[in-house]
């Protein structure tokens, strides 16, 4: 894994982790964690550490996470796997914000 890939992965992981931390419901938090696990599985468990993200706005965090995950395709990660990961993220967001 090259440095740029590692930095981008760390960024994506941190945003998804922040989403899980600030989730409104337990079900939503667990679904975000599932998306994070999927992201880690795509990299065979070779993971850079997450860092604290100061933002708490869920919409902003979600957009940042989606962008970071999407950009992982430029580093050789399979696009279909990334789309599945993004779908999990979307499902988690919908579950968490369901009235």
């Amino acid at each position, binding site marked *: 894994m090259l440095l740029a890939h590692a930095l981008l992965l760390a960024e994506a*992981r941190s945003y998804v982790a922040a989403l899980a931390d600030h989730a409104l419901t337990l079900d939503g*938090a*667990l679904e975000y*964690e599932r998306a994070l*696990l999927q992201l880690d599985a795509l990299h*065979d*468990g070779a993971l*850079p*550490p997450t*860092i604290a993200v100061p933002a708490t706005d869920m919409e902003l965090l979600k957009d940042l996470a989606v962008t970071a995950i999407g950009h992982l395709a430029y580093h050789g990660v399979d696009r279909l796997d990334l789309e599945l990961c993004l779908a999990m993220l979307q499902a988690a967001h919908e579950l968490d914000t369901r009235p």
Partner: protein
Amino acid sequence: MTYGENAGTIRDELTELLRQHRVLQRIGGPAAHPLPNPSTEAERAEMGRTIDRYRHAALTWCRMALDAATPSKEPPGPNTRHRPPLEDLRHWVYRTLRTPPAETRPVLELLDLQHDFELLSRWQSIGRAAALGEHDFTTNVNLGTITPDQALAVVGDAADIVRGLVVLDHRYKNIPGWRRLPWREHLNSAAEDVAGLVREQGTDLTVDVLGWRPAPAAITSPPLPGMAGALQAQHNALVDLARFPHALNLRRILLAQAKASQAAGRLAMTVSPELVERLGDRANVYRTLVSQSRNLGGIIGHGGVAVAETHNATSRLERVSAHNVSCDQLHALQRLFTLTDARLATTMERGLAEKLYFVSEVVTELVPDPTAADALPDLRRRTAWLPVTSPTQTGILPLLRERLRPPPPRVPEVPPGAQESRLALEAAIAHRPELRRLGAHSR
């Protein structure tokens, strides 16, 4: 089977045999009235040899019981006049067993025979329990596990069984070709001394709950419908957790356990409200564990089956309707959850202690500038995999130790009937006139 069940079977069958007189008639021998199932003398001699083989198995069990409860693991020393009672009994049991039984076939070949006479069936039960009971002594009925009082109970059982065998040896002497026990007077005297000693000191009968148990196995049948399927999957996950999972699978298991608890908690709201709080608490603990283990890595291990089965349990719990779930099923699931917690806590503690799991951390270090010796070192940050036992700690360990700690072991209780079984054998031995004659003879 526990030690209590095996030793209890030997005691109960021996008690029943001690109550039976006119032994020849009981194996089809000559009687005042014609018997429905008579036997020839040669057949009676053959039956005598079979009984002898069962008796040899029972004596071997006694020898193993005495070895398991004796500090010395060496065979008893040469004949001396000042042996302690327990050593004396071991000595005479060892000497008796040196004489091979008349029946040379292994006892295992005799355990599935169909006997025509009740007397032989009882001896067969003794042989079967003795063969099964041998596992108990190598598992946990030995001085490495049991207390001195429990060891006394084991010694007392062996001594009483030896006494019963000596009484029956005398009673069976008219069976054609019957092989008398060599050293029977010494054997009886030593066993009586030990039995008296045990009675004086008192014993702890909780040893009866110990013993060998087969390792739990996965339920490989097709998925059961409804809640039974969820229980099946959770059981299979627990069984597979005996294999060490690698870090990624461990995180998957933790996540699935959180979801399973959450789903079970929803069912409990309708079926068993007293479990709602515990299940909700468990879901929160696992959620925290999942978030604390985000940076956990480690490639050694398996855990694929446990992951799949935990997911099965979760999806079945989410699908099942609360109307089709009973309170007992939910409590059974809660017990499986408790066992799973204990197993996961042990597994994770092991992984962290043996450095099979690592934490990915950003570390800051000072790097000296090689071009200028007197320059201040550079401050650099880099990602490193660190063992959890290093100063870099995660919140995992406190959670494991405080929230997933295995439940304290239950104080063992004496199984019902344990005392009665021993008293019945004691009474059966004490009421035998042959014993009194033997005792008088040996003194």
